[in-house]
């Protein structure tokens, strides 16, 4: 009876250890070295058994266990990566110029290129609008009926989708920005200070 109980405990312990290894490999930002795993599991035999189990468990999944240089990582399986056309892309922030331009278009649309330049105080480089166009976050609007009929720019539905906005009107206004602390009032120098 006692033995059986012990055996059950052992089994529980093993299952828990396997879950720990699985979670560790999953959450690690880089392939996790065998030695690192051994530090938690202590027993080599148990760890080897766990890794073998996991390898088997994931072999027919959309994600497989890979061994790289004696380190372990989960990677999308080749059967589906082909299907999904996987490219490793490192997400990067938009450039400052592009973010500023996007923000100005979002708040002032429809707006011409020279109006954007006026607000930013610098001329727009060729690539800035291209980046936003390629992302399909902006699109040309109507032409303005001022001399030269300049083209205006406005945001797209994809832009709303990406930033999770239902409507362009739902962007916080200047007052909201002030109230939420996004506009640092101290930096603003009012030009209507009256002297008494």
């Amino acid at each position: 009876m006692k033995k059986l109980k012990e055996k059950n405990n052992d089994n529980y312990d093993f299952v828990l250890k396997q879950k720990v290894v699985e979670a560790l490999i999953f959450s690690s930002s880089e392939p996790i070295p065998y030695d690192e795993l051994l530090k938690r599991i202590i027993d080599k035999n148990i760890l080897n058994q766990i890794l073998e189990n996991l390898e088997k468990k994931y072999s027919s999944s959309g994600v497989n266990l890979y061994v790289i240089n004696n380190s372990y990582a989960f990677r999308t399986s080749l059967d589906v990566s082909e299907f999904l056309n996987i490219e490793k892309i490192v997400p990067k922030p938009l450039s400052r110029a592009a973010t500023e331009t996007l923000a100005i278009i979002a708040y002032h649309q429809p707006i011409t290129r020279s109006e954007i330049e006026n607000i930013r105080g610098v001329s727009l480089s060729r690539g800035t609008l291209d980046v936003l166009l390629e992302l399909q976050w902006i699109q040309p609007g109507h032409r303005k009926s001022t001399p030269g009929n300049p083209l205006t720019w406005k945001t797209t539905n994809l832009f709303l989708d990406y930033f999770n906005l239902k409507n362009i009107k739902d962007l916080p206004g200047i007052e909201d920005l002030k109230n939420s602390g996004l506009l640092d009032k101290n930096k603003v120098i009012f030009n209507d200070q009256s002297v008494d």
Partner: protein
Amino acid sequence: MSEFIYKKIDILSLSLDGFQGPIDLLLSLARDHKIDLTKLSILKLAEQYLEFLDQIIKKDIDIAAEYLVMGAWLAFLKSKLLLPVEKEEGSMTSEEMSELLEFQMKRLVGIQKVSKLLFKRHKLGTHFFKRGNPEIFGINQKNQYNSTLYDLIKTYGEIITFNNSKSITIANTQLFSVEDALNTLKSFFKHSKDWKDLLDFIPNNLRNKLERKSALASHFVASLELVKEGSLKLRQDSFNDNILLHSK
């Protein structure tokens, strides 16, 4: 009574760090007396609050200001509770007001309770984890940007702030320069040999105080300058008398 006041000051020191505002203070007063919110005597609470307000007004007028709206409201409520019931059209009865106050306090207690519950939960990055090494599928788009709405509106805020601080326009001032005053005095005394009151040089069409002050100051400085040069005499018979000028 002195013990009572001591206690109040205790609360005051609390109000300087953890405290946020009047409803919080009411709650704290209620809790201090271990009172069940549903059995709360609004009248007693109002009295204590007003007494507390009395104390801080003496100590720190700035903090007191933040508590005044609630104070005024409670004073009004207290007067209603003490006076015989009089039916006024459209205005709240004291019972309705007490009820509302109680509701507000209970609602804040509720929120404070759940906000604690919320932060006691298992949290991502502390108790459970996301995929540490994500792979990104590039199907339709080549570039994956991780811009957030926060980036967008913060950037816009910065542009607006920057533009505002960029456009400082200094208003044209209507101030009198000493140079102009010198010229006025010189040309006047070229032709006049009389004593002349300094105030007579101030144009009487000046609209505001500042302009008048400036005109007076610059003419006075100019007259001193001319005295120094030796071309003018100044005379003031007694303090507060008019200052008189005469060419030398």
